[in-house]
């Protein structure tokens, strides 16, 4: 059974003192309901994703205690992809016809920290200062740059592009463009990545209303079809975050596996995609993920960035709403923010950042610790 998205809603991303994660979730849900033209009491089931909010389902206290089945999910940086996948699968199972996926989070400023033992790593790995996600990102892009000829200036150009796109997005956290020089000149955190080449954990919420494809026109004259959603975890030999050791045998990462499976299910290829949202937790990640998702070959990114191909008006627009670099990363909401942007783009409702030429197919990708990826493909 095919699934359609008939409503999207967002609470802006950023920092909102005095507003709780649950309250942001409720606002995102109300906006998604209004977008779909339905009431909360019409919603038959829900999935809610969050890292900081123990029980996203508590949002019913702010919306109405209708008794609906509401399941909370947490799956690292792929939390939102998991909520969306489960919501779509619930419709495919046939039990329910109209549901919602919501993500909400409210992080403190600063790098994430956790007990390494919760990630099947030894305690000493954390004590020594190696249980650090940003260090993995630095190591992965540093190796990639050496192996495939990517320059430091390309890293800065990716950040500058995403901040420019963020400046056009009223819901973004960072809306001030920066020069390449200022990005390259900010303090080095993990070579070759400087301070402004990383996104920040922040706050926000996003929600998506889904229904059976055959019912979609009851709610909207611009349904967006969810052609595929996939989640994959790492296989032995992938170069992944929080790995005290790696085997000598090498294999591709979970993003590659999730992407290939999603394209196969959708019956589409990278050449069919008109607008792309990638996990750009750092500038290097956007570059690597372009290739891992099949949008170019390793090393082609240098020319794609130089030629402006990834800009809103380019041949392969990437992170048109500013991505994680401009929006920050409220973990539970981040992937649904990507879906929100793609839906707006495919409907022709993206305003100043509208991709020209009536984009027909959109793509989103998430990646996070300890090696989990989620992909979705949407089309008009």
């Amino acid at each position, binding site marked *: 059974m095919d699934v359609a998205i008939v409503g999207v809603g967002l609470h802006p991303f950023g920092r909102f003192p005095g507003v709780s994660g649950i309250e942001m979730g409720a606002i995102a849900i109300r906006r998604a309901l209004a977008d779909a033209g339905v009431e909360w009491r019409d919603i038959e089931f829900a999935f809610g994703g969050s890292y900081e909010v123990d029980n996203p389902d508590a949002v019913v206290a702010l919306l109405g205690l209708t008794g609906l089945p509401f399941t909370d999910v947490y799956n690292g940086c792929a939390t939102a992809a998991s909520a969306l996948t489960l919501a779509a699968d619930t419709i495919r199972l046939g039990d329910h016809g109209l549901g919602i996926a919501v993500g909400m989070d409210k992080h403190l400023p*600063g*790098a*994430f*920290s*956790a*007990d*390494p033992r919760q990630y099947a790593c*030894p*305690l*000493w790995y*954390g*004590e*020594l*200062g*190696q*249980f*650090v996600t940003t*260090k993995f990102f*630095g*190591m*992965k892009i*540093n*190796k990639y740059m*050496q*192996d495939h000829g990517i320059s430091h200036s390309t890293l800065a150009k990716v950040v500058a592009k995403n901040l420019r796109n963020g400046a056009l997005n009223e819901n973004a956290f960072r809306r001030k463009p920066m020069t390449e020089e200022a990005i390259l000149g900010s*303090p*080095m*955190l*993990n*070579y*070759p990545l400087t301070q402004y080449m990383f996104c920040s954990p922040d706050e926000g919420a996003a929600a998506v209303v889904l229904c059976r494809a055959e019912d979609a026109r009851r709610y909207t004259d611009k349904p967006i079809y969810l052609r595929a959603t996939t989640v994959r975890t790492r296989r*032995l030999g992938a*170069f992944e975050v929080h*790995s*005290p*050791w*790696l*085997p*000598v045998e090498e294999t591709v990462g979970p993003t590659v596996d999730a992407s290939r499976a999603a394209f196969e299910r959708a019956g589409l290829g990278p050449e069919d995609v008109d607008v792309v949202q990638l996990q750009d937790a750092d500038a290097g990640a956007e570059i690597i993920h372009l290739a891992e998702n099949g949008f170019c070959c390793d090393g082609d990114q240098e020319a794609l960035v130089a030629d402006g191909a990834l800009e809103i008006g380019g041949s392969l627009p990437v992170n048109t709403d500013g991505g994680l670099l401009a929006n920050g990363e409220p973990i539970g909401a981040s992937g649904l923010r990507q879906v929100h942007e793609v839906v707006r783009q495919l409907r022709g409702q993206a305003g100043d950042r509208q991709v020209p030429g009536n984009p027909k197919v959109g793509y989103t990708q998430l990646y996070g610790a300890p090696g989990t990826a989620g992909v979705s493909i949407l089309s008009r």
Partner: protein
Amino acid sequence: MAPVPVAEGIFTWPSDEPQLIGSRCTSCQIVTFPVQASCPRCASTKMEAHLLARRGRLWAWTTQEFPPPSPPYAGPTGDAFVPFGVGYVELGGEVRVETRLTVADPEALTEGMEMELVLVPFRADEDGDEVMTFAFRPAD
């Protein structure tokens, strides 16, 4: 003021020629670091201790130029923090171990360079004892 290892069982101690202690699966021969009780490739629980080579080649690297969030990080912070290198060193053609590097200068680090194991002071513990950890330095 006796030096103590950062953890038991990750390198031979005391030793004039320290080696990292990994494990090898007796079914499929994969080598892990540190020791683990089950095999991540074939799921066997028959793993045996296996000492790793003291020299190898740098496979990937970066620098850690800010104090990691604490906890879990237990080393020097604030003005006492000294940036360090981090990388994977391939040992004996059988495993890549993530490790501190004694060098944090990008100009002095190159993929493929020969590295060797050393034990270095990491911090002082509550009793004033020097806590030692493993690291790799460029080999001569």
